[in-house]
Structures are given as structure tokens and as C-alpha cells.
């Protein structure tokens, strides 16, 4: 089965949670065998892992005819795209885009990540998708998140192949209900055109059904998973000191410090814990628009000496942070899924998660509280820092539980859904 997949980011260049999920899905599908995945990315760096999916660089796809020499092409983009492919794509131009801002190869540049002209980039991405869809051979289209929905729709209209969209988050999650109409429009349009909607949790599925008015019969829950820790990360995690030697306990919040993640509830709970005990420290790993407000809030409560803001973390740093943490807290107000508690539990850190997060649907060996119930959250933090047997139980059982949640199983379910969708659309 050939899949044309539209993504926005991919490891090792991680901007948000989407990259990890995208990689996991590709790997999980590959493990099913007989899967041929072409993954379109706006601006790959050439150092991506291509074992599970062929990566197609959208910023090297021509949309305007340029008569360029093979060696020149090879010289310019050889590291990310085969020049042969460039010429094949050039044979499938479908409209005159000379008025667009193109470079010497007839391609459009992408800034990558989430720049301020995001809407323009999304539009450009979908123009290029038209060329790709004409040139590539595939059985199904899989578009990840709203950024790639227009591209998915375009590819579907060009090829007539079924479109699967993967909802990793909706604007309702990101904005606590105050949606951006443009984004909502793009999301809704994508869902309306999709033949199958995969949602990362039942929570998201309900949002899609109720707020985007989709037919429940085409919405499916497809929970995320985690990868077993790479040896070098495992080595970091194994350096954890035995709990008897850890005099001060560390409670960690890891994620963007934004409204969606509920950082203020974390501070409120921290305040309650620190009213009682002093041997606990609170770590805010991440950055975001509410960071300064949070620092001010901690200072106003007089707990700034116990709250630490080390800033954005990625890759190895995340696991170094887990290694030094005793409790992980994700107080998200609305979290479509939330992979990080799974990673924390994998690293042997017991987690407290909000009931409003998607991963709560598949996790059992962790503490679940309502995000607004700061008393319960504080109580759970205190208990994990105070009672060794409790900590140990959740540490051991949590790790065991998460080890059973693999991308291979997810890949199997996705493949089955692909087959059903193709059947349905014949």
C-alpha cells in the first residue's frame, strides 16, 4: 500500500509534539510490512531518519518551469532531493505561478516551524501539493493537523484518492474555546472533505463531532504511543539517584507555558505544598507566552526561591530533566493527547495528569485529577514526595504500563483503517 503523507515537522527538528507523533506513526506503519510511505515536509534538513518514510522536500518541488542543468540542480538541492525526482516533478506543473515568489529552481522557500506568515506558508504548501499529487503514485492520502489539510484536500481533488486526516489538536484545545475563525475554517473544511478522521483521543473525537459537526461514523480514536527509550536516553535515565539520596524532591512541569497547559494551576498547587513542606522544588521546563506572568505569580506568592524556570528543553535535556524529577505534572486544561506524561512514566517518573487530557483515557497507573482541583493536585504531589511505597508503586507499574503502549500496535490499527477507507471509497 502506498501512502502520501503530509506533515509539518519531523525529528530531529522538533518544534512541537507533532513531530514525535508523526515519526511514531510512520515507524508503526512501516512495522506492518508492505507499506510505502512518502512524507511531504515543508523544509527538511536532510538529516532526517528516512528508514520508515521517504521524505519529499516541498521547498524543492518546482511550481514554475525553469530550464536548469542537472549538475546545477544536484549542486543546489542534491542533499535533500534526487535531481531525477526534480525533473519528474517539473513534468507535472499544472498552472502558471510566475506571479508567485519563486527562486531560481522555480520552487518556493519555507521558513519552517511556525513563522508569523503561517497562513501564507500553508497556502504555498497546498499549491505544491498539487504538483506532488500529479506526479506521485499512491493509494491513500494522510494529512496531519490543520496546517496540511488544504494540501490534503488539493491532493484528493487531483487524484481522487481517499483522504484520511489526523487531528492531533483542534483550535478549541489551543484557545480554551475562543477559536480563531480562519483556523476553524481550515480545520472544518479539511474534516468535511475527509473520508476518515483519526483523532488522538476520545476527547478530541467528541470535539470533532460536536464542534465541527462531523459524522461520528467517520471519526475514529487513534491514541498515540511512545517509543522505547533509545540506549543513550536510557543511560541518562539510569543515572537517577536512589530516592533515599534525594533530599529535595523535584516536581516538574514540562511543556509550553501557555494557557492550554494550565501552568497557573501548577503554581497554585505548588503554593499549597510549600505552605506545608520546604524540601520540594518546582521546575517549569518550557517557554511560552505565559512564562513571565508565571514568574510574577510565583514571586507574588513568595515561592520564587522554590520555583525554577530553566526554559525550553529538547532531546536529551528532556530526559535529564526527568532523571532529576520525582513527580511529573501535566495540569492541561485541554490536552488532545499529551505524549510527555508517557515519556515521564517511561523514565520512571510518576505522573499526575489532568482528567481533561486525552492520554488519561489509556493510562491507569498514574494520578488523575481535574485541572481546576488544585487541592487534589497538591495532595497528590505531597503524597508522592512523602510516601516512598506510593512513589515506588507508580514508578514501577507506570513504566510497565507505558512499555505496553507501542507505535507498532497503533500502526496496525491505522493500516486496518486505511484498508477499510479504501474499500469504502471504491
Amino acid at each position, binding site marked *: 500500500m502506498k501512502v502520501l503523507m503530509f506533515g509539518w515537522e519531523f525529528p530531529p527538528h522538533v518544534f512541537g509534539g507533532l513531530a514525535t507523533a508523526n515519526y511514531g506513526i510512520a515507524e508503526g506503519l512501516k512495522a506492518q510490512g508492505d507499506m510505502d510511505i512518502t512524507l511531504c515536509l515543508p523544509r527538511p534538513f536532510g538529516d532526517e531518519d528516512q528508514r520508515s518514510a521517504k521524505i519529499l522536500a516541498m521547498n524543492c518541488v518546482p511550481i514554475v518551469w525553469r530550464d536548469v542543468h542537472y549538475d546545477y540542480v544536484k549542486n543546489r538541492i542534491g542533499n535533500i532531493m534526487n535531481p531525477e525526482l526534480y525533473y519528474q516533478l517539473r513534468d507535472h506543473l499544472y498552472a502558471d505561478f510566475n506571479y508567485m515568489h519563486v527562486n531560481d529552481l522555480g520552487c518556493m522557500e519555507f521558513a519552517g516551524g511556525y513563522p508569523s506568515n503561517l497562513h501564507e506558508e500553508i497556502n504555498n504548501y497546498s499549491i505544491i501539493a498539487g504538483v506532488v499529487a500529479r506526479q506521485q503514485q499512491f493509494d491513500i492520502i494522510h494529512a496531519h493537523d490543520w496546517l496540511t489539510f488544504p494540501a490534503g484536500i488539493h491532493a484528493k481533488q487531483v487524484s481522487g484518492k481517499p483522504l484520511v486526516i489526523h487531528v492531533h489538536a483542534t483550535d478549541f484545545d489551543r484557545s480554551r474555546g475562543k477559536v480563531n475563525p480562519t483556523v476553524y475554517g481550515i480545520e472544518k473544511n479539511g474534516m468535511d472533505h475527509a473520508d476518515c478522521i483519526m483523532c488522538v483521543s476520545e476527547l478530541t473525537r467528541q470535539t470533532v463531532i460536536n464542534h465541527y459537526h462531523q459524522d461520528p461514523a467517520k471519526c475514529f480514536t487513534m491514541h498515540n504511543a511512545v517509543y522505547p527509550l533509545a540506549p543513550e536516553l536510557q543511560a541518562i535515565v539510569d543515572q537517577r539517584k536512589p530516592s533515599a539520596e534525594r533530599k529535595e524532591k523535584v516536581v516538574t512541569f514540562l511543556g509550553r507555558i501557555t494557557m492550554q497547559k494550565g501552568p497557573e494551576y501548577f503554581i497554585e498547587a505548588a503554593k*499549597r505544598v510549600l*505552605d*506545608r513542606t520546604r524540601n520540594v522544588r518546582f521546575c517549569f521546563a518550557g517557554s511560552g507566552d505565559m512564562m513571565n506572568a508565571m514568574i510574577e505569580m510565583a514571586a507574588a506568592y513568595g515561592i520564587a526561591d522554590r520555583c525554577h524556570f530553566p526554559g525550553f528543553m529538547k532531546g536529551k535535556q528532556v530526559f535529564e530533566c526527568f532523571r532529576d524529577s520525582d513527580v511529573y505534572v501535566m495540569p492541561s486544561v485541554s490536552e488532545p493527547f499529551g505524549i510527555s506524561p508517557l515519556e515521564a512514566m517511561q523514565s520512571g517518573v510518576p505522573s499526575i495528569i489532568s482528567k481533561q487530557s486525552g492520554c488519561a483515557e489509556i493510562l491507569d497507573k498514574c*494520578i*488523575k485529577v481535574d485541572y481546576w482541583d488544585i*487541592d*487534589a493536585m*497538591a*495532595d*497528590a504531589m*505531597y*503524597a508522592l514526595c*512523602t*510516601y*516512598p*511505597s*506510593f512513589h*515506588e*508503586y*507508580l514508578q514501577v*507499574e507506570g513504566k510497565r504500563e507505558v512499555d505496553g503502549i507501542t507505535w507498532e500496535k497503533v500502526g496496525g490499527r491505522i493500516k486496518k483503517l486505511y484498508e477499510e477507507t479504501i474499500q469504502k471509497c471504491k
Partner: protein
Amino acid sequence: MKTICLYFEIHQIIHLKRYRFFDIGTDHYYFDDYETERGITETAERSYVPALQALISMAKEHPGFFKVAFSLSGCAVEQLENYAPQVIELLQELNETGCVEFLAEPYSHGLSSLANEESFKEETLRMSRKIKELFGKTPKVFRNSSLIYSDDIGCMVASMGFKGMLTEGAKHVLGWKSPHFVYNCAANPNLKLLLRDYKLSDDISLRFNNTSWSEYPLFAETYMDWIAQLPEEEQVINIFMELCALGIFQPLSSNILEFLKALPACAKERGITFSTPSEIFSKHKAVDSIEVPYPLSWVDEERDISCWLGNGMQREAFNKLYSVADRVRICTDRRIKQDWDYLQASNNFRFMTTKPSSANMYRGIYDSPYDAFTNYMNIVGDFISRVNSMYPHDIDNEELNALLTLIKNQGEELEVKEKEIARLNTRLKKLSPVDEPKKETKVTKAPKAEKAPKATKKATAKKA
């Protein structure tokens, strides 16, 4: 001749309230009275009252033939006294028919038999006294909370003078043996054992209303036929269950009470009798001894103690609680004693179970085992600090106990002396109406009290 031993347990938990760690040290009241009241009145209305009325009518219809045994936990008695006294009255009415035997059990319905021998004995005796007070008979037979039993527990129970004990006919202990005989404790042959027939008991308490059960609907005739068809030499059929099986586990709409009421007549037809545990112990000899090195119980498929002490959290909570058992026994504060009873109830530990079979279990106010654990530990933390503040922490229990006995003895001594003084005074008054000697005695008394300097404070407190 076959005989049926029917026994019901009456126990309800006193619910703990939501107790956060920041309440530790500031709030010393741990109970959710509303939930407790709601629970007990509902149980009384839906189960205890109709079930007891049915049993009374059975006893009156078959006087001298129908027999039944009961045990109550102290927690249940207190709740019934407070919120549903009509249940106690019904029990007394049933008691007057002479068909009932009341058994002893630990006051708290807790796990003290696994933790602290003295506490266990103390609360069992306390429960026996309570039963005597309510029903006029001192129990001769013992049953432990949830039928927990092991050789060690058997020894303790025998040493308290009980002649027999009820426990579970667990397959992993019995093996090929049948529960339909009287056995004795391997560690102390004087203690006889009655073993629950879990199949026949669960047919009523678990399966009676289950429409997908192959034997549904179950009739009293069929049930008695099963018993009658057992091999001739198997004579004692022990059917033990919670009283709330009638009405709560099996709703009244399933006609379970009609089934129950039909049992004596059907039994009579087939020559089967009813007996109380004491009657069986006096009539039957033990056929064999049973060795139980590891504790068993009547709970879950495993019939062991894993639902209370199966995971590390439960064991930590258990060890924490019983770490102050000796101190609590020594202390005289009534509120501490009362809280101690309620906190011991095994239900509190059961709420923390993480066994897969507990997935849809009733957990009271908690939504997960972790929630149950943190709440309970917060309460125990406060409780322990209260106990420790009663007496200095650095004196070990033995020394403390010795000092307290000293105080108690001296107090008693003083009391005797005071009586003596009063007696002499009246005599003196009779002889000569002079007040002088009174002063003298008072002076002699004062230095005596000061002889135990550490003790004075307590001694005075005691008198007060």
C-alpha cells in the same frame, strides 16, 4: 443427619471524609457523617430490616428448628445505634425467640489479627462485652474480620477461651478435603473450625439474581436437594454471608426473602436440620486438623489477604497504622480510641487495591486506589502525630507502660487509703466530735502522691 449452619455478618464502614495534607495538624475530625448516615440508613431500609423481619417470622414459624448465627462489628453497632436503632431492636426480638447465637469478632472489623496480638485480643474482648450488653450472652465462638484465619490467629483465638471459629473453606487449603466436616486448628487442637461452603454460600449471595447463571431461577427445593444429595457422611453445611447480601447484593425484587423463608420447610421434608455453631461444636468431633501457614479469607477468587495488603501502598498504610498500636492501647483518650477503631476497618485498605479484578469495584468517595491511599495516609499522618503527642516519643513502650501501671497502682492505692481515711474519720466522729485528726491525715497524704514525681500529673488527670 445433615445440619445447616447459617451465619450472617453485619458490618458497614464508617466513611472517611476528604482530608487534604494541609488539614494535617489542624483538623482532627476524619469522618464523613453524611455518607455514613446515608449508607447505613439505606442498608437498613433495603436489607437489614426486611431480612431480619423475614428471619423473625421464620423463627416463629419453626420454633426450636430454625437456627441462625450473627456477628456484628463494633462500627456497625455504633452506626445502628445512632442511625437505625430499629435494626438492633429487631435483632433483640430475634434473640428472644432463642434461635440465635451471636459470635464475637474484632470491634473494628480490622486486620489487627495480622499485626498486633494485644490489640486484637483487646478489641475482641471489647466486642464480646458489647454483645453481652446488647443481647445478654457472652459469645463462645469467634469469627475474624472477613473470615481471616491462619494457624497463628487460631492460637490467639484459642488462648482467649473460644471453643471454635468460623473461616473459609478455601480450596487451596482444603485440597481434596470437604468443608462439610468439623476440623480443628493444627496449632491448637482445642480450637474447632467450621469452614464455609463457598459454592452454596455464593449461590445465594452472589448468583441468586444472575439471569445468565445456568441454575437461574434457584428454588428452595432445588437448593435443599443439592444439600440432601451430598454424601451421607458430610454432615455440616456452613452457609456464611453478609446480611446485606439479602436486599443489596441480591435485590428484594429477586424474591430472595421468599426463597429464604421456604428453606426451613424444605429442609424439614428432607430431614435436614439447622444448628448454631456452638451446637455443632458440642455435637461433632473434629475429623482432622487443618494447617494454614498463610492467612486466608473469604474475599476474591484468591481467598487470601491480597485485597488488603496486596500492593506496597497498602502495606505501607498498614504498617504505619499499626506502628502506633501499642501507644493507642496504653492511652486513655477516648477520641483517639474511637478514631483508632474506625481507621482500622479493613474497608479502608480495600479501597486501595489495584488488583485487576477490582476494576469496577465500589470505592466509596474515592475515584482511584491512589486517591484512597493519599487520603488515608493524610488522616493516619494526623492521627499518629496526635498519638505521639500524648506521650513523649523517646520513652519506649515498655517503660511507658511500666510508668503508667505504676501510676495506676498508686492511684488505686490512694483510693483505698482515702476510703480508709473516710472510714476512720466517721469512726472518729462517732467517738469524739473533734475535727483535729482530719487535718493530720491530709498532711500525710500529700507527700505520698509526690513520691512518683513523673506520675503526679497523670494521676491527677486520671482522678479528674
